[in-house]
């Protein structure tokens, strides 16, 4: 059985690897397509993003991770829209990975301190089972999200948008915004204290 410290390291390593991969992806895009101005803006955003992520890792102040993800997303999407070209499939893949990064960082927040402290051989398998299940479900959900997103992108007659009337565009936008609002402020189903 591996010592708990190794498990904790794995829990920390996974989101950091994803973050590093996304940064490298953005850097490659910048190198390939961006002009010097793009370089300057993009690399500044990336440096700040990496600094935020490093600060979050060093101080366990996990709110900095949100800033790091936002800046990374901003650098990638901005660079794609302005210079490389808005190819939907890689952009959707990037966004799905960015969402996955957020989910894994929240799992890291839960499991990292637990693995640092738990050494009881009876408890450790239960923590392992929970961690394995949580990561598996997260990765599965991300894969499903990507596939469904691709299907939706194919199925929705997007070409209508360019030629459709203002009424169609506004109606569809209102529907989307309403859906977003429902998802964002869905009523809580939490119960009160239970003994």
């Amino acid at each position, binding site marked *: 059985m591996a010592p708990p410290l190794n498990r904790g390291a794995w829990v920390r390593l996974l989101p950091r690897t994803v973050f590093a991969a996304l940064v490298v992806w953005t850097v490659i895009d910048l190198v390939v397509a961006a002009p010097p101005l793009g370089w300057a803006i993009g690399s500044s955003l990336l440096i700040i993003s990496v600094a935020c992520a490093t600060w979050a890792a060093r101080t366990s102040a996990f709110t900095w991770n949100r800033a790091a993800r936002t800046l990374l997303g901003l650098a990638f999407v901005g660079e794609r829209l302005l210079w490389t070209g808005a190819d939907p499939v890689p952009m959707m893949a990037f966004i*799905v990975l960015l969402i996955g990064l957020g989910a894994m960082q929240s799992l890291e927040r839960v499991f990292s301190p637990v693995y640092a402290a738990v050494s009881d051989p009876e408890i450790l398998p239960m923590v392992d089972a929970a961690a394995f299940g949580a990561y598996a479900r997260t990765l599965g959900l991300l894969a499903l999200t990507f596939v469904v997103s691709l299907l939706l992108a194919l199925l929705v007659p997007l070409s209508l948008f360019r030629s459709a009337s203002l009424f169609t565009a506004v109606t569809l936008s209102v529907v989307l915004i309403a859906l977003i609002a429902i998802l964002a402020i869905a009523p809580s189903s*939490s119960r009160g204290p*239970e003994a």
Partner: protein
Amino acid sequence: MRTSLASSLASVAGIFVVLALLFLEWRLLLLAIPPLTYLVLAGLRPVPAPVLDVIREVSEDRAPVGQEVSVTLRVANRGPRIDLLELYDAVPREFAVPEGRPHLAIALRNGEQVTFSYTVVPRVKGQFQLGPVTARSLSPSGLDYEEAILPIRTTINVPPPLEDIRRARIQPRRTRAWVGQIPSRLIGLGTEFWGLREYVPGDETRRINWKATARLDRLVTNEYEGERSGDVVIVLDARQEAVVGPLAASTTEHGIRAALAIAAKILDGRNRVGLIVQRNVLDWVYPAFGRKQLFRILDALVRVRPGGEWSFRHVSWVLSRFFPPNSQVVLISPLLDADALRAVIDLTARGTAVMIVSPSPIEVERAMYSEDPTLDVAYRLLRMERENAVSALRRFADVADWNPRDPLATALRGVTRWPRH
């Protein structure tokens, strides 16, 4: 309940929709699809609310500062299976957790039970509560959770450490009629020889001095110095302005330690001891004898938290109205303000015998900083000022200027034995 990640995803999707409308760029609208899809798919399987039975056991419910207390939590799931359950037991910030952690993340089937332990070490005295237990059923997507706060609390009493001052010579200056251990300079019940007198009918045979009887050719009886007890009132200055240093090593905490040690020592000598604590309210324990009184004083001291601005005038008033006259007053104060000095002068002017035990605020502050030449100069100046103040007070009372890094007994050794009246 939604997490901030869910709100962020919804916001991002909204921003893409708005940007698509603004720039009439349909590909931006496509970017809103993944966050929305993730939100919808994650919402298809809501997380169950945790329904748990939790029992907490502690190895000690009364532990002194620095002693380890083992805490065991038994958690049983009475609701549906929870794939990711995060448990957190609230530990007061005055406790260190040297072993284990009051935090666990596990999967728990219906009816399954888990037991986990951790150790806490109290760093300051007081009455503390462990709990409540927070149970969160988390969605692995990181988008929502259900929380239950289980109001299970366990009280741990942390008494201040009891210093050994058995060899210190502290006793009340004035005695009363009760039998005690203080030689009273009056004839009475005791063990110290005082003198001889003519035998009177009723004298105990064992008190007849046979050598003197043989020499004087008449019955002579030994007389002994009566041993009596007295009253002591300990006044603890726990006002906000008397606090110097971090919570665990503040002048108030040291004062509490001194108060307990002095109370134990004086009660041990069969004297009555009372207590007045000057803080947000004016707490007092009326003088009484014995071990029960020590526990009463201990309970009062455990609850002391510095605060408030009660003037010493009120203490003097309470002393004169509610406490036995001619009680010895032991004032425990860092002597940081003129009010304390005036109070001592006022009490002695009324004929009250006062002893001062003063945890030095300068030494407490010095312990907080590393060696520095500038600080050293400041320290020496402050120390000179304090020595002057202490010298001035010694005209009115016995003063033990106590460096809290040293044992209290060392400081009390410098106090002269009080003259008896």
